[in-house]
Every structure is written in structure tokens, then in C-alpha cells.
């Protein structure tokens, strides 16, 4: 047991390091991204509502993992049904998996195009393996439909380990590279108002960066109000203070996620989570901020809620 898991650990580690260190994947990756960009611009996805929908903004986390369960689950079911000799049901299961795999491919590519470096390379291999599995299961579905059940089963048997490895890489993207994970600090500090900047230093329409205790914040003056948000994009930690303002929203300079100033909510993705907001006030010519109490995130009665209670 100990030896086996050691060997597995070493083998998987080697696999990951080999993929992450392979810069030959970059050229193909950028070509693919340019193709995707042009296609999305032609279809009007980039500036439209579909963009946020595919990123999972409405869900609060990526939409992609919702679909990946479908092929893995259905194709596992098909394996069992094949063993039980249920030919028609097995083909239906393969078919459901195919539909899920296509949806996962669309949402996966849509997320992948906004990743960097190592995650990008892992994503390339993940996508390539999935395409291979999709091909094998597609062929399996066609062959089963023509009555060639043996061929269909063989293709499924070949495809299954492929999606297992690919699923492992997908997990790596989340747990190791934190793709799709909210990357903001989410601290509760500062609990009391702290001075961050002289009021006259903050002009209209130009976001400014400031320190509030240990937290990096971005200050924005718009529509006669001063807004303060964490200076970190939840997607990949892009510096929001270097972004730009338009229609009451702040755009991340790296991947173009737009955030509503008043709530921090993402409007379009790739960031699916909101940016944490701060309360602001002006005292003696200074802008002061503190973390907006977010009682709903802590269990009722906990010390965190208590310590965050609003004091004048």
C-alpha cells in the first residue's frame, strides 16, 4: 500500500512536471487562442451576455465542472451496462456522455483561453486527451448504432482510462493551479476605519491603489461617491487599479472581467466570483475604509460576526 502510493505519487509528479515544463505547447496554445478569439468575436460572444454565462458568472463559480460530471458518470455507467450486457441502455449512456462532453469542451475552452503559463500547458494536454476520448466514444456510439457492439465496447474500454488521466489533470488545474477558484484574500481586516489616502488625491475616473492595513485596495471616485474594492481580481489576481472605468464598472486589465463598483459583482467573466468591497467615509480630508460586514458568510453567533459589528 505504502510503496504503491509512493510510486503513483512519483509517477504523477513526473507527469505534471513534464507537462508544465514543456514550452513547445505554448506556440500551439497561442494559435488556438487566436482562433478562439476570432471565433468568439465573430459570434459576438466577447461583448455579449453569453461570455459571462459560459464562464459561470451566474453560478458564482465556473460552469465547466458542472458538465464534466456528465461524461465521467455516463461513461462509467456505460461500462457497467456493458458488463451486464445491456446493449441499448449502454448506447444511451454513451450518448448522454457525448452531449455532456461537448458542453464541457465549449465551457472548458472558454475558461482555458484566459489562463497563464503552467496552467495553460496543463489545460492544453487536458483538452487534447478529452478530444481523444470524445473521438473514441463518438466512434463507439456510431458503431453501437450499427450493431457492432464489440467494436463499440472496445472503443469505450480504450476511452475510459483516457478520461481518467484527463480528469486527474482537470483536478490539477483547480487544486494546484487554482483555476476557477476565488483568488481574493477575503480577510476580515480592517475591522475599523483606517486612513488610506488624502481625499484630494483621488480624482474622478482614475482608480488609485492604496493600503488599508495589510490589504491592497483600489479606490474609485464615481458619481459623487467613493468606492473601495480589494485590488485583486478574483480570477488570477490581476491588479484592478491598473484597469479602467466605464459605466460604473471597473475592468481588470488582464482578462477584461468587469466589476460593478457598488457591489463588486462580476458582470462578464472570466472572474465568476465578486471582488470584496469596503465601506468608505471621509474624515478631516482623509478617505477611510473598513471591510464591509459580511455577516452572511460567518455562522450566526460566531466571534467573526460579533467582532465585525458596525460601530460608528
Amino acid at each position, binding site marked *: 500500500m505504502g510503496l504503491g502510493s509512493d510510486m503513483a505519487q512519483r509517477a504523477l509528479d513526473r507527469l505534471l512536471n513534464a507537462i508544465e515544463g514543456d514550452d513547445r505547447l505554448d506556440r500551439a496554445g497561442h494559435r488556438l487562442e487566436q482562433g478562439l478569439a476570432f471565433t468568439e468575436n*465573430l459570434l*459576438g460572444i*466577447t461583448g455579449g451576455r453569453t461570455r459571462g454565462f459560459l464562464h459561470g458568472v451566474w453560478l458564482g463559480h465556473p460552469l465547466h465542472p458542472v458538465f464534466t460530471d456528465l461524461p465521467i458518470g455516463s461513461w462509467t455507467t456505460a461500462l457497467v451496462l456493458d458488463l451486464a450486457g445491456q446493449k441499448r441502455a449502454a448506447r444511451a449512456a454513451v450518448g448522454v456522455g457525448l452531449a455532456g462532453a461537448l458542453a464541457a469542451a465549449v465551457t472548458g475552452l472558454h475558461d482555458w483561453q*484566459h489562463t497563464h503559463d503552467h496552467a495553460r500547458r496543463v489545460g492544453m494536454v487536458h483538452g487534447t486527451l478529452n478530444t481523444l476520448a470524445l473521438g473514441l466514444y463518438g466512434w463507439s456510439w456510431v458503431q453501437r448504432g450499427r450493431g457492432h457492439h464489440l467494436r463499440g465496447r472496445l472503443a469505450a474500454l480504450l476511452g475510459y482510462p483516457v478520461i481518467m488521466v484527463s480528469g486527474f489533470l482537470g483536478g490539477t488545474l483547480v487544486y494546484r493551479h487554482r483555476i476557477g477558484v476565488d483568488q481574493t484574500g477575503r480577510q476580515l481586516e480592517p475591522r475599523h476605519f483606517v486612513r488610506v489616502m488624502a481625499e484630494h488625491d483621488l480624482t474622478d475616473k482614475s482608480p488609485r491603489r492604496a493600503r488599508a492595513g495589510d490589504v491592497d485596495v483600489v479606490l474609485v471616485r464615481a458619481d459623487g461617491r467613493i468606492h473601495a474594492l480589494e485590488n485583486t481580481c478574483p480570477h488570477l489576481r490581476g491588479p484592478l487599479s491598473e484597469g*479602467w472605468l*466605464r459605466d460604473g464598472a471597473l475592468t481588470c486589465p488582464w482578462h477584461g472581467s468587469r466589476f460593478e463598483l457598488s457591489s463588486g459583482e462580476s458582470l462578464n467573466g472570466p472572474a465568476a466570483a465578486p471582488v470584496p468591497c469596503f465601506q468608505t467615509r471621509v474624515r478631516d480630508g482623509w478617505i477611510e475604509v473598513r471591510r464591509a460586514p459580511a455577516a452572511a458568510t460567518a455562522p450566526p453567533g460566531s466571534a467573526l460576526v460579533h467582532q465585525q459589528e458596525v460601530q460608528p
Partner: protein
Amino acid sequence: MLTEAPQAPARRERKTATRVLVEHHEVLRGLMRQLRETPRSQPGRRRALADELFDELWMHERIEESVFYPAMRDITPAIAAAWSEHRQLSDQLAALVRADPRTERFDRELGVMHDALESHAHLDEERQMFPEIERFADEELLVDLGDRLQARLEWLRSSRRIRAVLRLQRALLRRTAR
């Protein structure tokens, strides 16, 4: 051509890569300035300028991506983000050429284009990445890269195939605009 693209001189002046790129940023800024000064009553000129911006910015991205960024990967960690910013600029360029130059929407897209371009060219590259590179990279390497960037830019500008591809891209983007 509405602006003077520097014609290939018999013998090119040797410049560092960062200077070549900053000078090309100025070409792009000049186009943006002209676009912003052209009123809605001159849609033809606006369109021609937007076309030229589309081509020049496309070429700018390609020379950075094919020559400059790969060579700078080990010198600055900012390359991945810069690459993403290119993607944003491409998206915004597409939005700009899809907008009707007689409408307010065109002005709006132009405003976003301006912000996105300044965020990338000024805030990121000219203020952070280039000074870092000039501090840590070998002068000789930078001049060498400068030569390659200039040669690549000249080649892209004079390539008929590239021009045709860009014309086709713009036409497709406009045809599918809603």
C-alpha cells in the same frame, strides 16, 4: 495610408528592442489621436483610420509575441499578463471595427480602446516591464532583438498575404456585426 509608416531605409538604424516598441506605441497613439479628433461627420475617414489601427496593432502584437516575449520570459515575470492584455486589445479592436463610425457606439468603443491601450502600453509595459528589462537584460541582446523586431515589422507591413488576411478578418467581423 493616412499616416506615414516609416519606410524601410537602405540601412536601418540600430535600436534596442524596448525603443523599437515604444516608438511603435507612438505610431499607435498617433492613430488613436487622429481617430478621436475625426468627427462622426467623416465616417469614411474614421473607418479608414480604424482599419489602419486594426492592422498596425495586430502587427504590434505579433512582433511582440513572436520575437520579444519569448526572449524575455526568463527576465521578467510580467510576460503572461502582457499576453493576456493583447487578447483584450484584439477583442476591443474587433468591437471597434464592428461599430458603425457614424454612431455613438463607435465613440464608446474608441474610448474603451484608448483605456485598454494605455493600460497595456503605458501602465504595464513602458512604466513597469520595459524599465525592468532594461535593468536586467544584456544591452547587446536588446539591440539584437531590436533588429529582429524591426525586420519582422517591415516584413509584416510589406507582406501581401498578411494584408489580405487582415482585410478578410475585418470584412468578416463587419459582416457579422449586429
